[in-house]
Structures are given as C-alpha cells and as structure tokens.
C-alpha cells in the first residue's frame, strides 16, 4: 500500500470511528450545497418565471424606439447585442361609426410586423391575425361596449392626429395631470395615444389633422385589449399588418429583442439608444421584464438582484466555513495524534495535510448531489407554494396565466458550475487552516498533545479558591487557559448570532429597497384596519357626502365613525420652514441631475422662490391627540383647540424618482428618507400660505408646531410616501383652511376631501345596502367600499417584494440551521474530548451536581463571550451594510433589529445550555475506569 493510500485509509477509519462527527460535518456541507442551489437555481427559476409573468403583462419585447428613420434603424441593428427587431407604426386615429360608446368613438390604428404581435403579447379572442395591410384586428372591448361590428366587416380607415385647442381666454390653462398635458387658450396640442375622448367643453375643443393614411380594411379578428389601450382611451386598438422593413415608410417604431448574454453592463443599451435617437424620450424599455433578467435599464434593480445574491452566497459561505473549520479544529488533537504517529513513521507535511483535505472533499463529493437535488426540490416546492400567492397579489389582465401554468425549474449549466465551484472553494477554505496547522505540528508534539501552553506562568485564581468555588475555578480556567478548545463554541455562538442578525438586517434592507424603489405606493394611505366600511367624498359633491354622513351617524347599526380630511398641495411654505437635512438631500439629488455638481450659490439660485407645497391630513381631536401621544409633542398645545396647531410629519422621502430638474436625467437612483423635515421647534409658529380662489390672492395662515409625527407614530393610522411637507391637524383647523381655500364650503370643497370610516355594531340595518345601491346609481358622487377594498391594487413589483421577504425568512432559517448544527457539533465535540477530564474530576470526588454547576459556569462564560464577539463582528458589518446601502441606494430608515437580537440571544442561550445538558448527560454514566488509564488529558 502506498504511503498516501495509508493516510487515506487511516483517515477513512478515523471518519468511521467518529461517525457522529462525520455525519454532522456532512449535514453541514449538504446544507451549504442545498442553500447555494436554492440561491442559484432559485434565482434563475423565480426570475425566469417572473419574467414570464412580466411578459404576459407588458409583452416580451425589451425596448421600443419611436419615430426611427432608416439610418437610425440600421444603427440599431448594428448594435452587437440586438437579437431581433420588429417594425411597427402608429397611423393615428380613425372614426369607428359602429362604436356605441360615446367616450370612445375612434380606432387607434397601428401597423405591426409579424413578430410584434407575439412580442406585444397580442391575444386573439376570435378570428385570426391580419396577414396583409388590408386586414385588421380590433380590440374586443369594442364588442363588449356593444359595438355593432363582427369578423368580415369592412371598415374605411382615414387616419388623423388628435389635438386639443384652448378656447377659454378667461383661464390661464387647463392641465391634465395624468398625461402631463397643458392646454393654453388659442393654442393646439397633440394628445397622447391613450388620451380619453372629452368632446368639446367651454375651455377646449378637440380638432383633427389628417395624416393621409386611407385604406379599406376587413376585420379578420378580435383581440384582448392590448396593454397600451387603457379603460379611458378615446380609441379602440386596431392592428393591421406591416412589413418588417423600413423600405416603404419614412419613419416607424422599432421594437427590439436583446441578446441578453451579450448585454455586458446591463446599462449600456440605454446610452446607445439615447445616442442613436437623440433623447431618452424617444425610446422605452420593458423595465419589469428586464428587471427579472437582471438587465434593467434602471441600475438600482440590477444592484438589488446582484446584492441579494452576493449577500446570500457570502453568508452561506461564512456559516459553512465556520462549521467545517470548527469540526476540523475540534478534532485537531485526535487527528494530530494519529497523524503524528504516521509522521513518526515517515509521513510528510504534505501527506498530513492531504488527510484533512481528503476528509473534507470526500464529504463534499457525497454532499454535492444530495445538496443539489435537495435544493432543487426545495426550489420546486417553494415556487409551487408561492405561485398562488403571486396570483393573489398580482393584479393584471393576464392573471389566468399564473393560475394555469406550473413553474418550471430553471437549472442552467452555469448555475450548476457556480454551485460546484463556490461550494468546493468554501470546503477548501474551511479545511485549509486546520490542514496548515496540522502540517506544522511535529511528531513529538502531536503524540504528546501539548501544543497549547505558551505562557511561562499562570497566576493562581485566588478569587474562586478563597470563595471555595472549585466548579467556577475549573470553569474559568478552562475558558482562560484553553482558548483554542473553547473558541469553537464561542465562534459557533457568535457566528449564529452574526449570521442571524446580519441576514435579518440585510433582508430588511433589501425589503425596504424593493419597497421604496419598485413598489409604486400611493402618496397617502389612510389605514382602515378595524373599520368595516369607508365613505369617501368626491370633489364638488360635499353636500351629498355631508347628508350621507349625518344619515350614517344617526343609524342604529353604526357603532362609531371616524372622519379624515385629506388634501394634497393645500398651500405653500417658505424655504426656511424646511430643515437643513431636507435641503442637503435636495442638493445631493440635484447634483445627480446636473452634469456638474452645483455650487452652494448655484443651488441657492435654483431653489430661490421655490413653491414648497404642504399637504394636510385632518382628523377628529381625539385621534389627533392619540397620534400626538405617540409622537414627540407638547400635549398642551395639541389639546388647546383655540389655536390651530400641527404635527409635522418628519420622515419625508426624497428621491431621483419623485424629483426632477429641467429635462435632465439623473446619473443614478438615490433615495433619502429624512429624519427631520423641519427644524422648527415645538411651540414655534409656522406661517402657511393658502391660495384663496374666490379672492384670487394668497392668505397667510399661522399654525403652531405642536409636535413631530413619524412613520412609527403614524403607523396605526396612515402611511405617507411623499417628497413634500405633510401636516397632521385636527378637523377644526382643516375646516379653517377649507374656509380660506373656498368660502362656500357647502357647495365646493376645492380640494379637501373627506373620508368617513364606519364601524358597525352588529344591529340589523339596511344602511349598507342603501349606500351600495346609491353608490352604483350616483356615479362619482361619492365612494363607498368595504374597508381595505379601496386600497391600491398591488403590482408585480410588490409581489417581488413579498417573495423576497419569504425567501429571506427561508434563508435566515436555513443558514441558522447550519449555525445551530455548528453549535451542537462544537459542544458535542468538546464533550467527547473531555471524557478523561471528567473521569479525573469524578475520581477526585466531584459530584454530578458540582459537574453540572461547573458546566453552567463555563456556559455562562461561553455565552457572554459569544455575545460579545457577535456584537464586535455584527455591528461593524451592519454599519458597513448600512453604508453600502446608502451609497448605492440612498438614505433609508434601517433600524437595528433589537427584537431579533434579543431573540438570537435567548435562542442561542437556550440552545447552548440545552445541548450542553444533553451532550454531557449522555456521557455521565460512562465508565471512567478506562479514561483514567489513558496517557494524558488534553
């Protein structure tokens, strides 16, 4: 037998002999591979599935470029990452005489080349798709609205552009906020493609300009309303066939599919398209789909995806390295003894090292298939479990897709290679240090086993001797003088807490990033938890609301009501009202927009005379006081109803998303969640400027700052996501403001709307039925819905946030299992190594009770050292994470997970003491006789 084979043989024997330890190491490595599989395969599978969902929602195209000429078209095609292009064109609007919907009298006519039908996710409901430019498919909405049209009908298309022309010279302009469209008197402006048909009003009229496209076409089919057709569009979608070339057209739209493997940075294509088309406004990217392929034009999404992966993999590696290293370190002396013996008969340093590597890699080879298959199973099960959940929270027309398809596992060779390489590297790294240590030990030291004591003298521990506490004496000396042997347990406890805390903190960070960045949250959301119904006031219908409110309050079936006043942009405040922190964040964001950083003077110039709007939330005095009690405030000011007071909402959010400067595009995404929106002190007067529409002048309205509301103090009542100043006031103050804004409050509420939360008491009443019937009859006069129903529907992005939440929890649990195994293994290994020590103590007359006391003392020390190390390691990592997040994302409110910290402490304490008790109890009755005859104790 060759020398190396002997080493391997001895190692195998050693592994068999210590099978429990071998099994724990194996389980640890299996978990590591399993987790890595979950991360790599899970990421591929979930992103691929979400990409499918996203393409169902908005199509499978990656980018669309508008009004492209032939030269630009050729430039686009020459980009090396373009896989395919498809030409399409918008011909304009044409009348549809068969339409019976007065709000939708047109067709919006577009030409699609063959691929476009597929990429734009056009779904045929009846008939077939057009095969030449004399055929057309129409939106099935035209039929659903009662249109008298069917397959085979012939339509005359005479396309035109739509304009709105301002005709009321008494007003400055008419603004359409959802389309960012302003119509000035005497001027015409072209309307965007999904603009509603509003007819002629006293302020503006609609005019048309023919574009010369006339054609007689045959309807060959009906399609589901495509994504560009909204419910309020003035025209039904009509799609005809178009050649996939620019030969016969001057300008067209070009839809692009990228070769994703060739997109190197994931961001360069935006610059290329901007360069070719001359402006960011001339093209659009399918960001949701690209986000799920980690190639979004929005770099933040890519950062999040990459961050999540790197973060998870890093922590799996750290947890695994500590586990495997600990196992090898624990068995160091036993191993060094048999290796020392081999060394004395000629085994070289390299051969000794190879023993450690042999054990590590043989276990890794077993763990690899088990872990990969297990991981794939977990991903499959998790995705199947999550699928209906996705369906539940994603709202879009293609929901059926989620219900009817299964989630295919996406296992790429690349992912498998990564798993093999990263797990192999982790195992090698874990074995490297013990191997190096063992390689250095000579045969005599190995056999004698005295490798630890370096100090010359060890002072007597008089404290415990004088107190006659032998258990504490042995325990403390074990901790102080055998650091190498106790450090594995300390390391295991610390690593559990660090991994648990940092992953929890990181997951929270990721969650917040996703929420802030991806979730298009409403600006203000009044919470309705605990209420049954919500009655909401519609603009210009104050009387109806007031009458209904009185009816509701008088009804026997109503237990209580709560009324909220809400209004955005109520008025303005001067610059000095807003805090230094606000202006600094504002400056940072402005710098990201402008090509060069703004100097202080330039910034002052930019912000001089800013209209800093403020918005209000008004609530009854009782609720106002409750919010105040949860906030930092002066309750006397809050309770003093004779003077208008406000609680200033402090956690305003500024970002490159909710702020813009001229036509510039920001360099990157940046987010700030402020801690102080104003530097005004409690008791200070805050002058507000409110526009009086009747008097046509700005009126000053002074309020007293009674306190500061935060997300925390408001969480029970409302959520605010806004870049502006929000003030929480009582209803009296709200009414005063309303009065200024419009003196005729009963007729017109001019912006401030009310929301009545209703709680029923269970008494039979027909109130709800009456309200529901009335709400259906009186369209738009008031809103009435069950509490919770009126909230904004969630998006795919929010689904991603939820999925990340679930995955983060799973990840924390699985990595914690590795760490828990590590603690168990360390305690068990130490217990096994201390048999002789305990035999001696027993022979010296130590009772079981004294031994347990000694272990208790030891564990107290280990526990506190573990916590101390966890703090020393976790806090800087958390700080670093926070810094990295704020650099790449922005300043967000990330609290230290105090609750989880306490939980981790309790759990690790219970686990440490429990496992110690178990491991040592099972050894309590072992025969000490043989142990006493062994050569030495280590």
């Amino acid at each position: 037998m060759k020398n190396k084979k002997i080493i391997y043989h001895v190692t195998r024997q050693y592994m068999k002999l210590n099978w429990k330890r071998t099994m724990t190491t194996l389980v640890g490595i299996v978990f590591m591979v399993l987790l890595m599989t979950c991360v790599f395969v899970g990421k591929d599978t979930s992103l691929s599935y979400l990409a499918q969902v996203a393409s169902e929602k908005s199509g499978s195209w990656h980018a669309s470029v508008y009004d492209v000429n032939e030269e630009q078209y050729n430039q686009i095609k020459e980009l090396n990452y373009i896989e395919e292009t498809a030409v399409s064109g918008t011909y304009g609007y044409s009348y549809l005489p068969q339409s019976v919907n007065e709000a939708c009298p047109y067709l919006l006519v577009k030409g699609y080349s063959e691929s476009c039908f597929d990429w734009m996710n056009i779904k045929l409901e009846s008939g077939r798709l057009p095969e030449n430019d004399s055929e057309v498919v129409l939106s099935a909405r035209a039929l659903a609205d009662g249109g008298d049209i069917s397959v085979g009908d012939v339509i005359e298309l005479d396309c035109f552009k739509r304009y709105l022309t301002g005709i009321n010279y008494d007003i400055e302009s008419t603004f359409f906020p959802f389309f960012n469209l302003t119509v000035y008197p005497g001027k015409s402006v072209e309307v965007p493609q999904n603009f509603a048909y509003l007819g002629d009003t006293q302020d503006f009229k609609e005019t048309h300009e023919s574009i010369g496209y006339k054609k007689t076409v045959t309807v060959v089919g009906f399609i589901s309303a495509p994504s560009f057709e909204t419910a309020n569009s003035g025209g039904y979608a009509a799609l005809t066939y178009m050649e996939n070339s620019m030969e016969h057209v001057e300008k067209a739209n070009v839809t692009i599919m990228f070769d994703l493997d060739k997109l190197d940075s994931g961001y360069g294509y935006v610059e290329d398209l901007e360069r070719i088309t001359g402006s960011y406004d001339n093209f659009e990217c399918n960001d949701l789909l690209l986000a799920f392929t980690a190639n979004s034009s929005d770099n933040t999404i890519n950062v999040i995806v990459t961050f999540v992966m790197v973060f998870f993999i890093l922590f799996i590696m750290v947890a695994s390295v500590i586990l495997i290293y600990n196992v090898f370190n624990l068995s160091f002396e036993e191993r060094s003894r048999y290796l020392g013996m081999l060394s004395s008969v000629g085994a070289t340093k390299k051969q000794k090292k190879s023993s450690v590597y042999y054990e590590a890699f043989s276990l890794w080879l077993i763990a690899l298939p088990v872990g990969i298959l297990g991981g794939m199973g977990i991903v499959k099960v998790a995705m199947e479990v999550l699928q209906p959940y996705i369906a539940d929270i994603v709202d879009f027309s293609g929901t059926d897709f989620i219900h009817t398809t299964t989630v295919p596992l996406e296992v790429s060779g690349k992912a498998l290679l990564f798993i093999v390489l990263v797990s192999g590297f982790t195992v090698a790294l874990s074995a490297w240090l013990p191997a190096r240590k063992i390689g250095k030990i000579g045969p005599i030291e190995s056999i004698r086993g005295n490798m630890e004591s370096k100090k010359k003298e060890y002072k007597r521990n008089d404290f415990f001797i004088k107190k006659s506490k032998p258990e504490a004496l042995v325990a403390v000396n074990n901790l102080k003088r055998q650091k190498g042997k106790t450090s594995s347990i300390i390391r295991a406890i610390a690593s559990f807490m660090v991994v648990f805390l940092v992953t929890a903190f990181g997951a929270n960070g990721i969650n917040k990033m996703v929420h802030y960045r991806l979730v298009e949250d409403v600006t203000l959301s009044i919470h309705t938890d605990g209420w049954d119904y919500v009655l909401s006031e519609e603009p210009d219908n104050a009387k109806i609301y007031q009458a209904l409110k009185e009816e509701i309050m008088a009804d026997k079936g109503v237990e209580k009501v709560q009324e909220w006043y809400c209004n955005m942009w109520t008025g303005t405040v001067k610059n000095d009202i807003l805090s230094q922190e606000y202006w600094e964040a504002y400056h940072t964001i402005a710098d990201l927009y402008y090509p060069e950083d703004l100097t202080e003077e330039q910034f002052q110039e930019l912000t001089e005379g800013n209209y800093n709007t403020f918005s209000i939330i008004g609530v009854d005095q009782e609720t106002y006081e409750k919010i105040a009690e949860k906030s930092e405030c002066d309750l006397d000011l809050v309770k003093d109803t004779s003077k208008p007071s406000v609680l200033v909402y402090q956690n305003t959010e500024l970002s490159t998303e909710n702020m813009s400067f001229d036509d510039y595009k920001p360099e990157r995404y940046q987010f700030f969640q402020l801690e102080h929106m104003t530097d005004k002190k409690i008791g200070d007067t805050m002058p507000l400027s409110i526009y009086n529409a009747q008097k046509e002048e700005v009126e000053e309205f002074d309020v007293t700052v009674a306190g500061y509301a935060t997300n925390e103090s408001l969480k029970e009542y409302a959520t605010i996501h806004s870049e502006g100043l929000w003030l929480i006031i009582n209803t009296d103050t709200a009414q005063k403001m309303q009065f200024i804004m419009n003196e005729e409050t009963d007729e017109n509420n001019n912006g401030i709307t009310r929301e009545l939360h209703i709680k029923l008491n269970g008494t039979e009443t027909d109130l709800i039925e009456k309200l529901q019937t009335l709400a259906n009859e009186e369209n738009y006069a008031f809103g009435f819905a069950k509490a919770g129903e009126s909230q904004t529907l969630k998006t795919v992005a929010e689904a991603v946030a939820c999925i990340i939440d679930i995955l983060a929890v799973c990840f924390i649990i699985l990595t914690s299992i590795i760490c828990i195994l590590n603690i168990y293994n360390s305690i068990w290994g130490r217990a096994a190594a201390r048999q002789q020590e305990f035999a001696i103590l027993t022979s010296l007359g130590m009772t079981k009770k004294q031994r347990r006391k000694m272990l208790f003392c030891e564990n107290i020390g280990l526990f506190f050292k573990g916590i101390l190390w966890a703090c020393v390691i976790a806090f800087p990592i958390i700080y670093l994470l926070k810094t990295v997040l704020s650099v790449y994302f922005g300043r967000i409110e990330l609290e230290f997970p105090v609750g989880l910290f306490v939980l981790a402490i309790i759990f690790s304490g219970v686990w440490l003491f429990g496992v110690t008790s178990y491991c040592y109890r099972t050894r309590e009755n072992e025969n000490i006789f043989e142990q006493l005859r062994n050569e030495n104790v280590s």
Partner: protein
Amino acid sequence: MEILKCEHISKVYGKGNTCVKALDDVSFTVEKGEFVSIVGPSGSGKSTLLHILGGVDKPTEGKVMIDGTDIHSLNEDNLAIFRRRQIGLVYQFYNLLPVLNVDENIVLPHLLDGRKMEQERLDSIVEYLGLTERRKNLPSQLSGGQQQRVSIGRALFNHPAIILADEPTGNLDRKNGEEIIKLLKKSNRTQKQTLILITHDESIALQADRMIYLEDGKIVRNEQIRSLGGGIDEE
C-alpha cells in the same frame, strides 16, 4: 487498627463466551499506617483491584470497607464525597487537570469538599514536594517527575485514609521514580499515611511493609516483609 477490609471481591467483565474474570474472590485487610505493595504480571487484576478500592469501579461481588464504611453501598454522590475525603489516588499518567496550575491542582479535592483553602498546608506540601519554583506552571510545562509530585500533593492534601497509587513510577525514569517512592514512603512513615501501591518493580515492592502478589485475579501470596512502621528507610 484495620483501615481497609476487602471481602471476597470479584470482578467480571463481559458475559458468556467473552466473560473475563479480572478478580476472583480477593480478600485482605490493611492496617492503618501500613504500606502495602500489590504486584503481579500484566492482566493479573492489579489496577482493577485498585480502582475498586478507590471507588471508581464497582466489584461484581464482595465488599470494600474503608474505615468502617462499605464504600460500594454508598450512592454516587456520597461515594464521590467519601472519595475526596478518604482516598488519595495517584496514577501512572498523573491525570492532572491541564488548565489548573500546580497550586490549583493540589487544592482541587479540598475545594471540591467545600472547605476553605489552608494556605500553610499548601505551602508546606509544595515545599515538601520540591515544587516551590513551579507553583504557577501548568502540567504541560512540567516534567513527568514533577507532574507525579503534583499528583502526590493532590492525593495528600486532604489527609485521606488511604493513598492508592497505580504504578506511580511506571512512566518515569529510574531517578525520578526513586524520588517519587521516597516521597510516598516519607508520608507513610512520618504521617502514618496508609499506602497501597501497585508496581511491576520488585525493588519498590520490597520497600513496602507487606506485599500482595496477584495472579489471574487471585491473591497467590500475601507476605509480611517487615513489621508495621519498622525498618524506616530514611534518605
């Protein structure tokens, strides 16, 4: 005065075909202050006997009376208490606690008994053992002879009824071995410390008052070499 009485001690390991009788009906007595050596070939049951006498192993049959107490009738905790008060064990491989320095190792059984540390006694024992310069060292920093001296100090510290020494010189060179035996003999002679010693070395065995010869688990000879306390072999 009889300090130890063994009555029909038998010890059987295993069952059936694998059954090994380590001790077979061993009976003897030891007087207070007596120095008894137990000799015999390897596997004759010497160490088993010593561990049964020390209460760290239990006999299959028979009983051991130390100072009038049947030690194997005691429960585990009481036996542990009895052991730390009445028995001093000295092993071939010292069995010191590696994390305790010389002083701490010596006083450990005393502390385990819940008693206050007697500094003067510790100082005199350390001096007696010639370990004054090594008091702050851990066992791993001591030579074999020094470690064995610590082990003797630990055994003597509590004034035990009996010291049981299992081949205390087996792991030492001749010079160190002789020094250890001198120390044990000195405590036996000067402090009337009862001493039972297992050895392979005939010259050591012959220094005892009495020699018990074991073979195949049986006492084959029980010879009085000299009268109790007689023939003090001073340095």
